[in-house]
């Protein structure tokens, strides 16, 4: 294929740690191979050469957290045939969405001596809250295999399929020892989407939900179980209010735990 007929791929960044872009860069060999099949025309992290749109596939990392990003992402959408939001930041607002339930103004005042120099939105929100998104790849960071799989599917003209089953199912499939049962470790594996290969349990610790909610997420049952482990309800709510805490299922779970605590206080004799 000549350079002009190869699909044109662009990578953009909003508010993020760059980790998901680095996953792309770290897919070195695969990337060099793909470079034969695709034309990466815009990837500031990797190249000073940039081309204007339109793009066939656009990857967007990061959340919307500053006023100018709203316009920017709309322009990117207009220039893009197929838009993929990559990572926890782009799909659920990321860890920086922890500000959403708090007073962002107070955050600015805490950190910056001169708050008026800092332009920020009160919330950090996923790309899909602002423009149409064609595919979401979750994870903090995304999984390279899932990304390459998705790009290959698109090259073959197929819609990529992403599993939404849980880390817990993955754990059982791989025969890992259950950290919740064996160690009493709080683990979000039962309600978190797979993609990482059940990495945390493989490394002897509980999952902290970095791939976001699985389908369907039975968060009520897990929340009760964690409370039964003897964890204070604030800590259980914090488990859900974490890297992907602004994803609706986790947000509701955290609120339910906080509300449950209030109900208990009322119901106590």
């Amino acid at each position, binding site marked *: 294929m000549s350079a002009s007929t190869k699909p044109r791929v662009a990578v953009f960044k909003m508010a993020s740690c760059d980790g998901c872009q680095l996953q792309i860069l770290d897919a070195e060999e695969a990337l060099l191979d793909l470079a034969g099949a695709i034309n990466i025309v815009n990837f500031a992290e990797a*190249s*000073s050469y940039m081309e204007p749109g339109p793009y066939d596939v656009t990857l967007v990392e990061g959340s919307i957290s500053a006023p100018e990003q709203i316009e920017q992402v709309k322009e990117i959408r207009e220039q893009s045939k197929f838009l993929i939001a990559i990572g926890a930041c782009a799909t659920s607002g990321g860890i920086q969405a922890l500000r959403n339930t708090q007073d962002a103004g107070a955050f600015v005042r805490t950190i910056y001596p001169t708050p008026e120099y800092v332009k920020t939105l009160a919330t950090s929100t996923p790309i899909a809250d602002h423009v149409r998104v064609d595919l979401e790849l979750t994870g903090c960071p995304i999984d390279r295999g899932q990304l390459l799989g998705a790009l290959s599917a698109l090259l073959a003209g197929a819609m990529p399929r992403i599993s939404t089953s849980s880390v817990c199912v993955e754990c059982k499939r791989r025969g890992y020892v259950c950290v919740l049962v064996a160690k009493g470790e709080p683990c979000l594996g039962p309600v978190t989407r797979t993609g990482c290969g059940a990495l945390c349990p493989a490394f002897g610790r509980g999952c902290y939900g970095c791939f976001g909610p699985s389908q369907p997420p039975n968060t009520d049952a897990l929340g009760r179980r964690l409370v039964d482990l003897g964890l204070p309800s604030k800590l259980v709510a914090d488990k859900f209010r974490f890297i992907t805490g602004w994803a609706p299922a986790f947000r509701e779970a955290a609120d339910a735990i906080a509300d449950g605590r209030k109900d208990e206080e009322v119901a106590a004799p």
Partner: protein
Amino acid sequence: MTHRSVEVPVIARVEGEGALHLKVKDDQIVDLRLEIYEPPRFFEAFLAGRHFSEVPDIVPRICGICPVAYQMSAVHGLERLFRTQVPEGTRELRRLLYCGEWIESHILHVFLLAAPDFLGYDNAIELAKDEPALVKMALDIKRLGNELMAAIGGREIHPVSPRVGGFSKAPRRKDLAAFLPRLEWALGQMPGIADVVAGLPMPPFDRPAEMVSMVHSDEYPMNEGDLASTGGRAFDAVTFEQVSREVHVEHSNALHSVMADTGTPYFVGPLARINLNADRLPPVARECAARAGLSVPEPDPFFSMAARVAETAVAIEEAIRIIGAYEPPEPQMADVVPQAGRAVWVTEAPRGILYHRYDVNEDGTIREAKIVPPTAQNLRHMEEDLRRFVPGVLDRPDEELTRLCEMVVRNYDPCISCATHFLRLDIERS
């Protein structure tokens, strides 16, 4: 009077987003500002109220390129406050994990980010067309760093095993031993890489600088040590906030660091470390520094590339040593009992010293956190470099001037997401 305004969209291959505004009148700089666009993510604010055990999962998200640095400054500081005795072997395994990050980060910088600049390519893929063997070798070494990190941490970006108290799971001896042949191979490549760097065309740039790094009595510093400067200062994590002060600059979301007493900028990173720890360089690293033409004292920031190559050798030599003597820590984790008080620590991230402070409540929740990343400490120094460098090259056409300014900034390998992405150069000539 004619105004000319040039928009150069990006300083690419810098992680983070920023712009350089340059206003020139009659060959004099009227205004020079390094702007940071990265929207603030408020880590310090939302750390408040979280349980200490969550900190090693939160702070790496500040920067995807040096997550281990954030984890290391945090776990060491909290353990010292809690008087946690980590299991034997933990110290060495943490150092090994850091070696992986240094290898990965330094090689990424030298070959994927900086070398294309020096050699006039847009990116490493273009460079790879002319120098396939060199780029492939570099990528193999970088992958080695990544895989070492993943073997210990589960994944190289945001590792999962480092905890306050040790590792949730330590690798088996044989899993690490499997890295030895590749590490030996990589070490053998380093002198040749130093020769390549020695041959890169470097613009002359002589400037005095105060450089700051950790120092340690018997090893090249990573996780432990005091602080020293080439200006004769001696301090440590406890006194860090008295010696270094952050100032908020009008045009920026980042805070710049200066010396509290003199108000002057300082410079952290590989070149600072080599200047202050030249006698701790292991043999191959020493040879690489010599072959790349680096002899201390050397304040010229353009020697940062040479310093990264020498430090890559440090990390490989250390990795070989540590793996050779490795026994998995037993038990894997220490019991951690939180205590109220102040936790402070500094470690050497690939880009320089990274300071963390946590004020902790009795129940182990964080009351207040403060994080001073290396790039924030270097920003003022970068700006000053540009101020000194630009007058000598103002006669160059805009395109070349842009490229030269990019190189000055890139010496610091700014990971602007930690402080702060793309650098845009805006030149206004009249």
